[in-house]
């Protein structure tokens, strides 16, 4: 016989996305969601207490004399099953975190509950890209590449124009494309490789440094500028360093004043939960919303696992690529507007996926 709490616990399985505010450690987000889920579980009514046999001294009936007492049995609920003695019904809910975000950044953070943690692993191993919006500021350089750090140098930036910035971005993009091709272990002189590259299905195999698959400037208002990045295998510190390097290439210096993740694989910002919605019922709704995506990720993950030892065969690679394409298409479908397939004018290979956020 299951109680209401147990039934609710069994439903808590899946992935959902949360919008992490800036300045908050990701652990705090995970702990808050776990404690909210536990609160909902423990507020369900507890199971009925066990009854124990207790003999009570009661006065006898009319046939006994008044001085005699009779021990009569009765079933009484035991205090040992009282909620103040047993404690809460649930102590722990497994909540896992996908790709982490450091305290300075904000944005989409994927969390998994219960059985969803296994799918999280598949998500991390899969080759989905992440979408970032980087805010930069020309004119100074700091020790930790952010605008709150200790200022090391100050420079002028009057000579910087949008044209120069875009040239620098194109150069960076070119270098990243080369790295992508190298790490994806395809022979560029084949027709298949070209077709994969056109469809945007090249991705690095095994360990690789951070690679930007897409980079462009969406806002330029000196000293401030905004870049949009799609990347794989990155850390937020690398992205802040990227801003610094853009500044260096332009013969000035730049600091990063904001890193915001707008997409993590198929999980987008529109469906991420804000702080007010980190409660159990909103989380259950989000899990239900993402159940289809979760199933796809699990399937592709399992396929990749079973095809593990045959990694070298191109046929298998084709099929895993098609799975990734499905996941990528999935997030294109999820977006409400028509998908952006803007081809950059410099290189024919670049594909920028997803929507941009101004």
């Amino acid at each position, binding site marked *: 016989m299951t109680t209401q709490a147990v039934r609710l616990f069994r439903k808590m399985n899946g992935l959902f996305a949360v919008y992490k*505010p800036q300045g908050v450690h990701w652990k705090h987000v995970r702990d808050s969601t776990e404690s909210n889920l536990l609160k909902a579980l423990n507020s369900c009514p507890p199971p009925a207490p066990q009854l124990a046999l207790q003999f009570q001294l009661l006065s006898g009936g009319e046939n006994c004399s008044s001085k005699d007492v009779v021990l009569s049995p009765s079933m009484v609920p*035991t205090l040992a099953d009282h909620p103040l*003695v047993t404690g809460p019904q649930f102590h722990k809910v497994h909540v896992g975190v996908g790709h982490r975000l450091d305290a300075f950044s904000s944005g989409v953070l994927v969390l998994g509950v219960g059985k969803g943690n296994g799918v999280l692993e598949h998500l991390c191993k899969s080759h989905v890209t992440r979408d970032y919006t980087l805010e930069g500021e020309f004119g100074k350089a700091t020790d930790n590449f952010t605008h709150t750090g200790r200022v090391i140098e100050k420079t002028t930036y009057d000579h910087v124009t949008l044209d120069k910035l875009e040239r620098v971005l194109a150069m960076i993009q070119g270098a990243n494309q080369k790295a992508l091709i190298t790490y994806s272990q395809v022979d560029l002189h084949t027709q298949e490789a070209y077709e994969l590259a056109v469809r945007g299905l090249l991705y690095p195999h095994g360990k690789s440094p951070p690679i930007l698959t897409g980079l462009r400037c969406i806002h330029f208002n000196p000293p401030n500028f905004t870049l949009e990045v799609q990347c794989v295998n990155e850390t937020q510190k690398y992205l802040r360093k990227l801003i610094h390097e853009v500044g260096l290439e332009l013969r000035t210096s730049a600091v990063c004043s904001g890193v915001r993740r707008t997409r993590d694989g198929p999980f987008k910002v529109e469906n991420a939960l804000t702080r007010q919605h980190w409660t159990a019922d909103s989380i259950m709704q989000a899990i239900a919303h993402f159940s289809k995506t979760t199933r796809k990720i699990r399937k592709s993950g399992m396929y990749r696992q079973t095809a593990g030892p045959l990694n070298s065969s191109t046929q298998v690679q084709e099929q895993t690529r098609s799975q990734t394409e499905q996941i990528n298409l999935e997030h294109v479908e999820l977006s409400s507007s028509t998908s952006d397939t803007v081809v950059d004018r410099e290189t024919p290979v670049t594909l920028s996926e997803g929507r941009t956020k101004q």
Partner: protein
Amino acid sequence: MQLFIHALGGAETVHSASPTKKTGNSTRTTGSRVYEEVYMLLPKTVVMHVCQRCVSLLLSRPLSAALQQSTLALHQRAHLTLLQHSTRHTHSRQTWRHFTDHQAASPDVYNKIDLAQKEVVPFNSDVHRIDLDAAVHPSPLQEISEEEAVQIHVPSALPPESSTLRPYVDESETLSKLVQLGVNLWKLEQRPNVGSMLVRLDFHADVAPKLLLLKDLGVEETKLGQLLTKNPFILTESLDNLEARVSYLKSKKFSKQSVAAMVSKAPYLLNFSVERLDNRLGFFQKQLGLSAEKTRDVVTRLPKLLCGSLEPIKENLKVCELEFGFRGNEIQHIVTTVPKVLIANKRKLTQIFDFIHNTMDVPHSLIAKFPQVLNAKFLRIRERHLFLEYLGRAQYQPSQPNYISLDRLVFLPDEVFCSEVALATLEDFERFQKTL
């Protein structure tokens, strides 16, 4: 975490001293105590007459066994199970003592078996002849005398050690009364040694007088449970000390209701000595430069000030004066309006003040007028301010039109804030939050 709760050690030693029915003065008092305890557990509607036989049975047994109610069937069952229990409860002192008294036959039987195995050859003597098929224990249908019946000891089924209080709650009067009051025993047993302490407490001697004291003080009965959950050590503090501290507080002209409120809010208050309370009150009056009545008001609203250490409070005051740059009278006003500033986290306080003063450009005088903002969550202030700035409605100067006061900025719930202050919808606010 292993909690060794040694069950009822105190109660049992009392009873082991006199197992016989012929009771001296000592056992009469203990017996009456046992009787009283049993009586307390019975429902109030029970008729008072208990037959002599039941009384004597209750007298002979320790508290736990007495509650496993006596019937004739139990007598006979006890005899049979004694031998089985002997092997299980070997480490319990009480059981061994009783076994040596009543089961004199068993050691001899074992000895005899050993002897028989060693000396195979001389098998002639009748002394060593053992009939292993003979019943070692008497038949359950055998009649026994009243004295023997009374001396039967049923070993308690309670485990001598346990990591939770669950096995003892039904048997112990103290624990069941505490549960009925609303004390969270599960939380208390996580703390080291508190569980053992609670099991050893005697309800009538230790717990009841203190509960009556608290009730006389004016603490509500519904709050007693929470109080004891936070501070179970109020039950081990001596009654004289508690009364002395209460009278000290009353002598400092705290009204009865304020003392009751202080004790409910800060459960550890009465565990502190009179000197310490005096020291604290003196510090607050001197340092803050407030009148006696205002100090009393501040302390009544936040009695935690009297419990904790003074160093963080001194640091916070220094931070307010030197880092923030508040004047003396501004600090006084802030502390009397929001005493929590004194024990707030220094780093968080600095972060909030920095944002309000430097980013929102609110002057000191205005912050001193609305000190509640220093108590609010930083993320909330930041998001709301940035939203208003995006909409162009961030106006915090009273002299300008469309002025938004700081308390309305921070303390309105989200829907009211969006509709009245920001003049936007809740969805817009959420969409804006996702762009930060």
